[in-house]
């Protein structure tokens, strides 16, 4: 059973992750009345990029060259950290949710430093916006998982999945409020509307895409895979902690694909019907999430005491 859970965790995180943005793209196109690309399009992109040579930007050093591999490596580490079901053994890196936050921040830091290394206007703009919004995203992330950690009495992700399973925990509004906060974290972390627009070709509006403009070939493939892996991580957390889920590990694994599909559908719907918000309002949106999570913490503590 734990072997299966580890298999899903690794195969899902590393191989199936690009399917998630692919599905969102596919459904977005359908919602707009277009046929759109197949959900497998990200794989085609990765194959195409893998066959191309990377570009070395004049005047850049090791920071720029290492950023794609550091980002991809930090995302692999993050995948190792995030279990897909309760009672999954740790893969030598522990299961701590705060470690996950640090690892995700490392990937972001690598890309931001590479932007600084290139000195390109778009890359720097994107990176600086990304880091600004990340301050608020991370805070909301911490507060949302703090609720789940309170409920489960641990910051071990596997135990958090077990602790938030079943229907009893939903009798308190805490987890619901945390779920609302985490929904905003999902939108911000995956770089989707209304916070960021992954489809845009308008360089001046870019957040996550900006720093990627300086990369090509395998480097870009690494970064695009990393973006997909980020989808996997936050959506798995959303599905297994912040959505109602079964207590049995078998049921958790069986329902996961459907939960992920529903979440992708939700993101596609939000992205189709919402315009991107004014950039200075994005922190405010995340602050609303943080406030909801804080309320969740209060409501749980009040019940316990």
């Amino acid at each position: 059973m734990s072997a299966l859970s580890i298999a899903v965790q690794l195969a899902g995180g590393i191989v199936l992750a690009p399917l998630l943005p692919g599905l969102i793209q596919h459904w977005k196109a359908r919602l707009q009345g277009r046929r759109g690309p197949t959900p497998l399009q990200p794989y085609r992109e990765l194959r195409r990029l893998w066959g191309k040579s990377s570009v070395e930007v004049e005047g850049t050093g090791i920071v720029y060259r290492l950023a794609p591999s550091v980002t991809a490596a930090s995302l692999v580490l993050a995948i190792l950290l995030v279990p897909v079901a309760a009672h999954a053994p740790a893969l030598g890196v522990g299961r701590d949710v705060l470690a996950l936050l640090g690892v995700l921040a490392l990937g972001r830091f690598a890309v931001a430093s590479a932007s600084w290394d290139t000195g390109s206007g778009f890359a720097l703009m994107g990176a600086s916006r990304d880091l600004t919004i990340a301050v608020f995203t991370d805070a909301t992330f911490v507060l949302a998982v703090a609720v789940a950690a309170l409920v489960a009495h641990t910051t071990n992700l596997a135990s958090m999945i077990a602790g938030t399973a079943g229907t009893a925990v939903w009798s308190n509004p805490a987890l619901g409020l945390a779920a609302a906060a985490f929904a905003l974290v999902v939108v911000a972390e995956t770089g989707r509307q209304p916070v960021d627009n992954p489809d845009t070709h308008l360089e001046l509006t870019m957040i996550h895409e900006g720093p990627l403009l300086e990369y090509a070939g395998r480097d870009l493939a690494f970064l695009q895979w990393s973006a997909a892996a980020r989808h996997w991580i936050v959506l798995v957390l959303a599905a297994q902690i912040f959505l109602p889920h079964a207590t049995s590990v078998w049921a958790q694994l069986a329902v996961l694909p459907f939960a992920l599909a529903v979440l992708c559908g939700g993101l596609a719907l939000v992205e189709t019907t919402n315009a991107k918000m004014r950039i200075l309002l994005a922190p405010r949106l995340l602050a609303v999430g943080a406030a909801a999570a804080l309320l969740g913490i209060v409501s749980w503590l009040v019940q316990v005491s």
Partner: protein
Amino acid sequence: MSRSPLNDYRTRIAAALEGGSRFGGLHASGGTVRTALVAPSGAIQFESAPVVDGRVTSIVDLAPAANWDEREAFDSYGVRFDGHEPLRPLVDHDLDLVSWTVPVRGPDAYQVAVGPIHAGVIESGHFRFHVVGDLILHLDARLFYKHRGLERAAEGHTLAEGLAYAGRACAACAVTNTVAYAQACEQVLALHPTAEVARARTILLELERLWNHLNDIAAVCAGVGLAAGNMRFAALTERARQLNAQLTGHRFLFGSVEVGGNRVAFDATAARAELAEIRAESESAWRELLFNASFSDRLPDIGVVSLEDAVTFGAVGPAARASGLAEDARATSNLLAYDGFTAIVPHRAAGDVQARLEQHALEVQQTFDLLASLLDAPVVAASCEPAGNGRAIGAARVESPRGATLCIVESTNGRVDRVRLRTGSYANWPVVAHAAAGCLLPDFPLINKSFELCYACADR
């Protein structure tokens, strides 16, 4: 005390501007610089000054809208303008950055260069933003990347042949440009469009406005990443273009205008039915847009052009009307079938992105109304009728989807000596740069799309 002719030139222009005329355009021709002034009645008056030792007095202090015209006249015709300092290059790109950008200095100020090659399929234009963080302090726009020399190429051809050059200046305003050229030529040739010719041209102009305005609304949706609205209006745009193809054989209405008459003929019944469907569909799409709060939140107070600025910078078309300047060349065009037309402005004429979008939506309704009443009978081929005496210079001002386009044709013996096409986009580009200042960088694409000007109109 004797007054030099140069001073006279300035005095006359100052007097005309004082009397309510607006600057229409300025061009160099032979040894002369000609300024066109447009009276409130729509009448075009020329004031000329001879070029002495390659120099003419500048009028840019009287009419700031002449800024681009004078810079272009220097780059293309070598005319220096006394008093226009610094005369920064516009068309000439073979110069260093310092020569064409406005110096912006201060703590933390830096430049962000965008284009001329963009990530999307957009025409070539280079935007140099002087910013602090994400705040735009100043924008220097450099267009004219694909200068084709169309005006020079048209010289020496017959007036009828010259039409092709005006028609290919820009695809989005092909009808406006050719109608303006044809009207200017007809003044030279002493021809007057009959009611039938005027009606056909008006229908073509409004068909052009229809697809352009629908496209511009789609562009604003794309500017804020509202995919649903973008797709809806993009589909309507394409439907309008396909109607154009059915009626005239070309989606962009190319080749539908000719000098001295009208050759396009079609039965209006099918067009009326299709237009009624597009109208119903676009009205429902617009209502849905109004209900989208995330969309309408993005529009107010961005890219503001005050009424005063609109007048100063010579804004035209929907952009000027959105600032409350109720001016429309259609209201004064006696050579077209716009009887009883009055310019409209939005209820909230704040000159921001929201007002410009609203203006586009209002004008789409106006265009549907116009087309419905004009398409009451089949469009038939017709010729202009002789009237009065010919002139050496013909000038016509026609309202394009982006504002009034002025076409000036100077001719001797039926051949083009000089043609100048000053389009609505050309007039409005400096306004875009002005509107961007004080806004945030990520809002610029939206501001730009709320004007949705052509680059090709500059790349003549």
